[in-house]
Every structure is written in structure tokens, then in C-alpha cells.
């Protein structure tokens, strides 16, 4: 699964990996805003962004080709609009959508490939995102794989009993979703009881405390500076 690969990459120890997550989130937002406001796309600048993001990937000691491939997840949707733009006689608009979508996805992949999920949530918290929402995200992420595996097992079991998934009756599939819900509900209560037994009072303790060092500021300037300069050149 893609998120398992991102999690593996995020455990690196490069300069980018060690930076304060808030610095990385802010840098990613600046890059995304710069890309989003490229209208029309200045192709040399788009290429420069691509080279810059590739250099960032290399400096973070990440597999360049695989990171770029991970960003192509957005391309099928973008291609539909590119074809529509081509049919409407504005191919440059379609190409611009592809370029912007791919560069934006590459930025998000880079952010996630250099920041572990708990660190990302800590960074969002330091940027004053609602703690309640972040806690829900934390639990969601923790039990995502467990329930997805359970749903997959139920789907396979149903397929082996009924031939193929497609011939499952509607109600039977709804029943399967109901059973999955029942299991998830029971699991949620068991989790809470276990956490309450360990002293959970609504706040999840942090094992790593981040401090904003001069190196984090240098990282932010090193990313934002060239990106904003390129955006300025694009006109």
C-alpha cells in the first residue's frame, strides 16, 4: 500500500527529515501556493520547479523514480480534463492542469516522505490545528490498516462462498458492512477501556518535543526563497 511505503520513507535521517514538521508544512504550503497561482503555466518555470523538487528528493536520500511515480496517482483524473481541454481547442489549459496537479502531488509526497505521521500531527498542532481533529486523525490512522485488512478478509470470504464479489446480493453486502461496523464499534470500546486502564484522560502524551531551531528557519528560507523567486520570474 502507498501509505506503508510513505511511512517507510519518512523514517529517514536526512537534513529534511530532521527538520521541525511545522517548517516543512509551511514550506510545502508556500510551494503549493506558488504552483497553484501559475496561470498560465510558464513552462520553463514549471520545469525549474520539477528540477527543484527532484533535487529536494535526492537531498532527502529518497528513491527519485519511486517518489515521482507515487505522485502520478493524480494523473488519470488530470488526463480526463486534459482530453476535454484538447477537445475544446485549448490544449495548453489541459497541459497546465497536468503540470500543476503533478507538481502539487510531488510536493505532498515529499512532505509525507520526510515526515512521520505522528510528527506531522505534532507540526499541525504547533500551527494551532484543532487538537480534537488531530486526535481523531491519529486514531483513524492507527486502526485504518486493521479494519481495511478485516474488510479485505470479509470480501475474500464472501467471494469464495459466492463465486465473485459482483454477484453478492445487495443486502448481503450491506450486512457485511454492518458486521464490520459492529466489530469496529466493539474494538473502539475495547480500545477505550484499555486506554482508560492505562490512565488516558483525553490527551495523548507526546514522546518527542519539537523546538524550532535556526536550522529549521534556514530550511524554510532555502525552500521558500528559490520557489518564490521562480514564481516572480514566471510573471
Amino acid at each position, binding site marked *: 500500500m*502507498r*501509505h506503508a511505503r510513505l511511512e517507510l520513507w519518512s523514517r529517514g535521517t536526512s537534513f529534511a527529515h530532521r527538520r521541525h514538521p511545522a517548517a516543512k508544512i509551511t514550506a510545502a*504550503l508556500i510551494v*503549493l*501556493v506558488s504552483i*497553484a*497561482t501559475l*496561470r498560465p503555466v510558464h513552462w520553463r518555470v514549471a520545469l525549474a520547479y520539477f528540477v527543484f523538487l527532484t533535487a529536494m528528493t535526492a537531498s532527502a536520500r529518497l528513491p527519485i523514480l519511486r517518489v515521482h511515480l507515487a505522485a502520478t*496517482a*493524480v494523473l488519470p*483524473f488530470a488526463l480526463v*480534463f486534459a482530453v*476535454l*481541454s484538447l477537445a*475544446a481547442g485549448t490544449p495548453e*489549459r*489541459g497541459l497546465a*492542469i497536468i503540470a*500543476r496537479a*503533478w507538481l*502539487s502531488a510531488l510536493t*505532498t509526497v515529499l512532505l*509525507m516522505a520526510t515526515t512521520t505521521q505522528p510528527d*506531522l500531527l505534532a507540526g499541525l498542532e504547533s*500551527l*494551532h490545528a*484543532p487538537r*480534537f*481533529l488531530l486526535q*481523531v*486523525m491519529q*486514531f*483513524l*490512522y492507527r*486502526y*485504518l490498516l486493521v*479494519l*481495511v485488512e478485516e*474488510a479485505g478478509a*470479509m470480501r475474500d470470504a464472501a467471494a469464495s462462498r459466492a463465486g465473485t464479489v459482483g*454477484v*453478492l*446480493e*445487495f443486502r448481503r*453486502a*450491506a450486512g457485511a*458492512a*454492518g458486521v464490520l*461496523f459492529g466489530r*469496529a*464499534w466493539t*474494538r*473502539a*470500546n475495547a*480500545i*477505550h477501556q484499555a486506554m482508560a486502564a492505562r490512565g488516558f484522560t*483525553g490527551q495523548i502524551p507526546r514522546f518527542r518535543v519539537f523546538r524550532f531551531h535556526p536550522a529549521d528557519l534556514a530550511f524554510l528560507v532555502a525552500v521558500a526563497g528559490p520557489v518564490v523567486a521562480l*514564481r*516572480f520570474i514566471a*510573471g
Partner: protein
Amino acid sequence: MHIPDGYLSTPVWVATDVVAAPTVFWLARRAQSKFDHHRVPLMGVMGAFVFAAQMLNFPAGNGTSSHLVGGALLGCLMGPAAASIVMTAILATQALLFQDGGLLALGANVFNMAIAGVFAGYLPFALLKGSRTGLFLAGFCSLMTAALLALSELLVSGVAMPPAMITVSLAWFAVSALIEGALTMAVATALERIQPGCLRRPQSGSRAWVVVAAAATLLASFGWLLASAKPDGLQSLALRAGLTGRVSSLLSSPLGEYQASFIANPALSRTVAGMAGLVVIYVLCTAVSRAWAATRREGA
């Protein structure tokens, strides 16, 4: 329905972010104040459940299959405020981990699916007191509202779509909404059998604002679609009413037309306007958060 980055124009993603971020802050505070801390694991696991339930294929006829989107179901199970937070958590996770939807477009996706979609779904559920018809309409309205808003935002952003494509899209949305309605009803009925009383029927005191919010959402989504299909309509109406001058003077600001008018260079001007938009969102969220905290302290 997850809009990636690069599709929406700056006015659209800034406007939806400005609406969505403070709303999520307010809903998070509201959900937090209403629930015990034991609801946090429950909400997280419910989010994971919706993710997992999207893996279960439902036969939709002609050899095709569909899957649950889940906004309406969550609203019926947890109430609209909590459901909006769980949907926001799902959308953020999808954008960050699966590149399903963009980060700048997260505001648009949250507004469409987690706010408007959930509340529009909760309206028929609340009005029809949790009946099977109410459950069906909850799924239908939720998906239809989210899809109409997404389509409108793309059209307003200037994404090329021939009229035939818009018609096909609307027909496809209607079919998907019917399937979502049937799925919501079937899954909720199965849940009630397994776990009686799990559906969160509205309390009398909370009903009025839910109805108003959901009705406003429905009206807004259809209004957006009309405005986006005929963008000159609003302008001609303003002209006929003699409002053009007043409207333009009202809208003229240092960041009007999503450009920083005090900066000569157009590129830098747009970038500064975009950054300013993000700062405005941040300040709005902090203000909402502090105002809420102050209200709570006074009430305590």
C-alpha cells in the same frame, strides 16, 4: 469527487478554505464539548470503518459495482458535528497519504463532503425522524450536494467541460446518489439489527439549526451550479438593478480580484494575494478558537 490541487482557480480555493477552516474549528470545538473523551477513539475507529467499508463492493446492476461514500451514514450514527470532524479527518488522511484530493483544495473537499454533504444528508434524516425513507434521502442528498458543489467549483474555476459532459456528469451524479441512498438505508438497517439504538436521532433542541444549516447548504449548492452554468447571470442582474457600481466599490479591496493591488508585478501580486488568503484563514481560525474558549470560560 476529491478535487486535486491544480484544478481550482485561486479565488475558488481561497474562498472555500476561508469558509471550511473556521467551520471545522467551530465544529471541532462543538463536538469536543458534547462528547466525553471516550468518543475520540470511537470517532477515529468510525473513520477507519468508513475507509474499510469503501472496500466492500455493492452490485449496482449491469455488472458494475459501487461503494459507500459514508458522509450521511456517519451523520446518522454520530450527529452532524461529529460526522463532519470524522469526514474531515478522512479527507485529510486521503489527501496526505493517498494523494486523493489536494492540500490547497482540502478546503473545497471538506466544504463539499464533510460540511455541506453531511449537513444536507442530516436534513431529511432529522425531518423524517430517522425513518427508512429519511435514511435513503440522507444518502441521496448528501452525495448529490457534494457532487454539485464539486462540479460548480470546477466550472467556476474555468475547467473546460462541454455542455454534453455536464449533462452526463449530472446524470451520473443522480445515479450515484440513488445508490448512496440505497447503501445508507441498507447499511443503517443492518446496523440497527446488530446494534439497536446506534442511530443518533435528533434531539428537539438541536433540530432548528440543523434544518436551517442543511436547507442553506442545499440552496447554496444549487445556486452555485446555476451561477457557474451561467456566470454572466449575476452580473446582468446586478446591471439591471443598478448595483454594478456599488458592488464593484464594495468588492474593491487591497486584495480585490485576488491580486495584491499595491504590488505592480502581477506574478508577485497573485502570490502575495494567495499567501494573504492563507494568513486570513489562519487568523480567522485562531479568532474563532479564542472566542469559543472565552465563551466557554464565561459560561463555566
